[in-house]
């Protein structure tokens, strides 16, 4: 027992799963996913030293993340992706996924607005365009691929913050009562 208490964890380097595996997209329909993928391509193309959203796996990550999100967020994404595709079909008779840069610009640019923290635009489609833009940027800049690229060009590891681990979670609380329900208000719904 005392020997066990003195034992220290050996140094065994560990890796992130993204270095060896990918997430198969499974939530969005093929058309919606293709639209999201095209949005990733145009919102965040590769920089000189940094990967594109596509290379950073932003679309696969968002497929997973939105698939696990509350209904309201899923609905916003599904309706928004449908609307983007429908607008493109209406204007150019071509799916958004196959639209060229000029056609994409005509569909997207009218809906881009400047906004500040916690207060994206209220109109539903404008809100979607600006939030999906933010989400794609975040999923890209915070990706393992982005961090690898930063380190490769001699930059400091990006996005370092002070992380709080779970603070002594209560045993019985989580086992027996962790599913107590509260009324949820979506994060973007305001006074």
């Amino acid at each position, binding site marked *: 027992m005392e020997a066990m208490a003195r034992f220290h964890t050996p140094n065994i380097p560990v890796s992130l799963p993204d270095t060896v595996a990918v997430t198969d997209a499974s939530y969005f329909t093929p058309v919606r996913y293709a639209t999201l993928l095209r949005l990733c391509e145009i919102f965040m193309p590769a920089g000189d030293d940094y990967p594109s959203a596509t290379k950073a796996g932003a679309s696969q990550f968002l497929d997973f993340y939105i698939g696990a999100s509350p209904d309201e967020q899923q609905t916003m994404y599904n309706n928004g992706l449908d609307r983007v595709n429908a607008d493109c079909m209406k204007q150019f008779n071509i799916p958004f996924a196959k639209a060229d840069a000029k056609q994409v610009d005509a569909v997207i640019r009218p809906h881009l607005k400047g906004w500040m923290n916690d207060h994206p635009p209220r109109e539903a489609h404008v809100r979607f365009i600006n939030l999906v833009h933010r989400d794609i940027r975040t999923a890209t800049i915070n*990706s393992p691929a982005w961090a690898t690229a930063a380190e490769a060009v001699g930059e400091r590891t990006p996005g370092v913050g002070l992380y*709080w681990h779970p603070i002594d979670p209560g045993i019985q609380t989580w086992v027996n009562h962790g599913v107590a329900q509260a009324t949820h208000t979506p994060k973007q719904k305001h006074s």
Partner: protein
Amino acid sequence: MAEKKVDVLIIGSGHTGGLAAKILTEKGISCTMLDAGPMLDFDKYRELKPVHELPYRGFDAPGRLPHVFQSSEFNANQWVDEKVVPYYHPPEQPYNWVRVRSVGGRSPFWGRQSFRHSDYEFKSKDHDGFGENWPISAKDLAEYYPRVEELFRVTGHKDGLPQYPDGNFIEDNSPWSGAMQRFVDAGKKLGVPVTKPRSALGKDGLAASLNLMLPDAVATGKLTTIPNAIVRQITADKNTGLADGVVFVDRHSHREMVMKARVVIVAAGTLETTRLLMSSEICNSSGALGHYLTDQIYGAGIICSVPEARDGKAPRGLMGGGALIPRFRNLETKTNGFLRGYAVNVSCSNGPFDARALPFYGKELEQKLESYNGSGFSTNIMGETLGHYENHVTLNKQVVDAWGMPTLNINTKYTTNETNMSKDYIDTMAAMAEAAGFDILVKNYEFNPPGYSIHEQGTARMSDDAKKGVVNKWNQSHDMKNLFITDASVFVSAGWQNPTITMCALAMRASEYLAEEMRKGNI
């Protein structure tokens, strides 16, 4: 085990519970402090991590903490999970109840803005006719504010403004940056004072009860601290009607424990305090318990760019620094459309520009960001909201938390007073920014839901009249003279100020009053 009766039982270990413990133990009075959460271990529970190593790339777990806008994947574990301690609000009346449960309460995480109240707040009814006056004035706290400011090590500049009382500051004589000076000058032309921020430096990077108050109490040898003790009920002596202890539940095992006390101080944080009093069915002969909930509006603001700072051309000293605009409306003149007033936090940034403020995408956005980095200028409102009787909480016995305690229904909403205040604020800030030569990129009139500021106040307000308030001017219950409430639930009106310094001044005053009453044998 023999039942022990403790001298003073303190429920909650945040700023005001911690201050009560410090004052009382230093006067030789034994205190036992209960906190519903675990002891914090900063070495064990925190570490620097890159965001790409977090499970959700910084987004946090889907659907977690929907009411805590301040939450990120980095800090999500510090907040109370509303699935464990639920509350209800009507769908059309959102309320963001932002809570922490660990020893020290919310005190390790506060924003540290440190302001005194003035008689524009304490005597607000005399000034504009709304609500009630506090039963105290600024004069009653004159002895306590400087001691609290010394404890917190407040830095600031003396401005000589009656609505922004000066204090015992570590003097801030730093010069304005060039851009900030332009904003100051623009304010002067419109009668808007732009002043230096006032902020608690604390010690070693922290301004919490954990490091500023509790160590002094521990050093007396008279403080017993018990974490993981969730108080379910304050008990009363059937013969005297006085508080005589508590029933609490161990957070881990759910074992129920009974504890006896001569005096009870409730410092659980505004709405937790009120929930406990309601659950205990005490301190409500006035009918005021749970009513007059108030706070401040946050979230509305403008984002600007300083043109001369773009493309990396900012001359040295042009950018950087912050400012505070104290309330300037409805002081000597009356503004149409709203009562009371607002303060403004102003920030001038050398850092990266917020991409959300720029309506571009792809390489064009990257080029814009490269140009705009280091040119940011923004403002954020802290506006007083009105504590209407209808803004209230009730107990929901049908829905209990993980420890079997009834939960709260929170019914509160803002009115045209707040909407009109926000409009005046944005229009005024935009006029100043334009006069200063800044490019305004975003004007956001929309403010966050009630609760967001984490400055919830009222629901157990103080009054000289036992029919109008829960406690008297000494923070002492009208119904139980051996029960004191030291948190912001006793506030009569919100003011525009961050409430911490006033909460602490009141807690210090109440604790010294209590100690004297105990010495005299009155309690």
